[in-house]
């Protein structure tokens, strides 16, 4: 395994960014970078994603959530920083950065990433309780994804209905690991963990010998019960509660709800 030379330079840039971010607060006027030509102010230590979100500017993302440390896996937030690709959720903001976000080139890549997520799982929106409130779906609308493009994988993934109050439908999992973070960092329970390898192996492991959620101390009041951006972790007996037309992303595109909605 090797790292390409270009990656080394990206790393060098990023390291430089980090070093600068760690410096004591500089004068506020200097703490501005450019995102698609727009001035974005930032506090030292913030990532590009954090600063943009705080400012109300949308950078597409799925695995990032303002309450948790960056996971960096979905790659939807890939931007070009001074001409180089990188994840905006992990790159520190620094003065004068020139960041490209919603360019045709980047949105094309993001659309392809979304298509990859749609074909690797079983995403049947018409029969999903999360439809209309789903970050994956809303992001695909935002990026004008008209088809899955690739051949479908139709994987065989299990549903876990063992818990009295919560249903787990892994057919819709996008491996964002937000449930892992929420259960670990907020609930202090460590019920979920992303393990396994590769397309077929990678999955959320449940912390019980049976692998069933019912055999854990998971509760419907846990932060992890409401964190899932897609329709994997769902409360039982509460499907399709909001009529079509009034659901979160019926009201406005995800890009117009940067501060209002958590993904």
């Amino acid at each position, binding site marked *: *395994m*090797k790292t*390409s030379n270009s990656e080394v330079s990206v790393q060098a840039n990023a390291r430089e960014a980090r070093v600068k971010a760690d410096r004591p607060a500089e004068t506020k006027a200097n703490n501005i970078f450019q995102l698609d030509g727009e001035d974005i102010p930032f506090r030292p230590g913030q990532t590009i994603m954090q600063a943009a979100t705080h400012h109300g500017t949308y950078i597409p993302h799925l695995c990032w959530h303002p309450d948790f440390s960056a996971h960096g896996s979905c790659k939807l937030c890939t931007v070009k920083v001074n001409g180089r690709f990188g994840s905006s959720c992990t790159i520190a903001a620094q003065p004068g950065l020139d960041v490209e976000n919603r360019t045709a080139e980047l949105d094309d890549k993001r659309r392809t990433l979304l298509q990859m997520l749609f074909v690797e799982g079983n995403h049947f929106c018409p029969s999903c309780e999360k439809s209309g409130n789903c970050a994956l779906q809303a992001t695909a609308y935002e990026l004008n994804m008209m088809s899955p493009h690739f*051949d479908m994988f139709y994987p065989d993934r299990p549903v876990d209905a063992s818990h009295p109050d919560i249903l787990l439908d892994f057919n819709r999992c996008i491996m964002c690991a937000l449930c892992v973070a929420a259960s670990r960092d907020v609930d202090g329970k*460590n019920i979920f*963990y992303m393990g396994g*390898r590769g397309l077929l192996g990678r999955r959320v492991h449940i912390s019980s010998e*049976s692998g069933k959620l019912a055999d854990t101390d998971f509760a419907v009041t846990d932060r992890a019960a409401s964190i899932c951006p897609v329709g994997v972790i769902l409360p039982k007996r509460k499907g399709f509660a909001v009529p079509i037309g009034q659901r979160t992303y019926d009201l406005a595109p995800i890009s117009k709800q940067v501060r209002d909605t958590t993904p």
Partner: protein
Amino acid sequence: MSDTDMIDAVVERHHRDGARLMQILRETQEQLGWLSPSTLTAIAEAIAWPRAMVEGTADFYSFFHTRPMGRYRVLWSDNITDRMLGNTDLMQAMCKKLWLEPGRVSEDGLVSVDTTSCTGMCDQGPAVLVNYRAITRMTPARVGEMVGLIRSEMPVAEWPAEWFSVDDNIRRKDMLLAHDLVPGQALAAALERGPEKMLAEIRDARLRGRGGAGFSTGQKWETCRNAEGNGSNAAHYVVCNADEGEPGTFKDRVLLTSHADLVFEGMSIAGLVVGAKKGLLYLRGEYRYLLEALESALATRRAAKLLGKNILDTDFEFDIEIHLGAGAYICGEESALIESLEGKPGRPRIRPPFPVTHGYLDQPTTVNNVETLAASCLIAAHGSAWYAQHGTEKSTGSKILSVSGDCERSGIYEYPYGVTVRQVLEDCGASDCQAVQISGPSGICVAEGEFDRRIAFEDIPTAGAFMVFDETRDMFEVARNFAHFFAHESCGFCTPCRVGTTLVRNLMDKIARQHGSPYDIDELFKLHRLMQGASHCGLGNSACNPIFDTLNKFRPAYEHRLMSLDYEPAFDLDAALSQARQMTGRDDAAAHLQNEAEA
């Protein structure tokens, strides 16, 4: 001893330390055969980790089994070089003799036969691992004998010793392999200089990493040395990356077999420079057979006061532990390797921070290649001026190449940097060569017109693999083998690599089945462009390199397989009616679908 007692003993031996989970899982599995749900629960409780984390690690590595896998587990190395030596037919013959499908465990739970990624025996293949012991030079006769031994349940330890012999095959020595250092000589020189001057020597020698990326070793050590340890367990660490997983590479295996002292001594010098007391050698699971010899080499060094406290009667304290991997190419990436050292799935970390400031256990850590560490001994002993005379301006010293494939003398060749591809081909006896894959699948495919290019960071950087393909070889099949490799080895963390490597593999298989069209070639280019920029680490970024190179340099190998100029389905439509035909017993004309190009 009951299973519970056995697990307790293993966990106790590792001080109930979760960071040692990989070793705990391996040793447990070596005794129990597999890692059952209750075994994982017991281990999780003993190390006080959430059970899902323990299972997540057990599930990640190819060599750990959370299902019973048979008392004999035969894994055929499936690098393109093994294929060229006929491993496919041999494995098929073995399965036939055992009445077995690849990947399945026999009904009586006796045996399973499957493929695995390159085991690093390319110069003496076809190779297999049997219960994770390396066996070389498989032949039809050996397959027959092996099946007999398995059927009679002869313990692997009692199999013919010559099957397990692994040759060094050193064909050309240069400054490193021809060294005349005795154990302790380089370390003594380093101690005499002291850490700062030793660091200056490394910097002045302009030593660069031998893993392929060529980062300045001096800069890495200096940053690590200057980084402060973090928290109450502040410390610095040296990690030797012996997870030699790049298909076609086997030079670290030879260094660890015949020059282990040099590697350990290099680690000690690194420890002196960065201020570490502990070094960790991460040995790939495929090289499990080297473990005992390496442990005994460490013991010898301890006895000789070359490890431990008061090394060579100075204040310097340093010791080395060996960690075994368990079948995961991704662990060659330094931050994934560190995750693995900490008992977790080998998932590359978000960088920055880099290991030099936040590495093993969040402490400053220098991760260096086996060959880099060995080379540092030459600099310690002979000085930077002498060292920098060798090689080229930007690539000082020598490089060890692992030569395999279509040549008369495959094996290990050490050259000063700057050697041409053509020179290597001449020396190894490669005639009618059409291409060389340098630095493995993630490296570069060099075609005939480029044979005057040089092995050096200025031109072709390499981790050491040098696979030769003569004119009879089908470069499409070479690339397809690599596409399967990457799909198998993707850790699955980031979307572009997790899904992209499988899409690429599927497209290559589609073209191989003669269902392809120019549309599919465009798709390959598109995936290459996406994965190269958007992936989390080097694996995803370079996974399409072999496709891209062969599409550019050997495009007819793809084109002659294409079915038509129009879009074609990936699957056989007539075969898609097979189950309905079976259930209805129909075979009339309407019970068949012609494929489009024939229709």
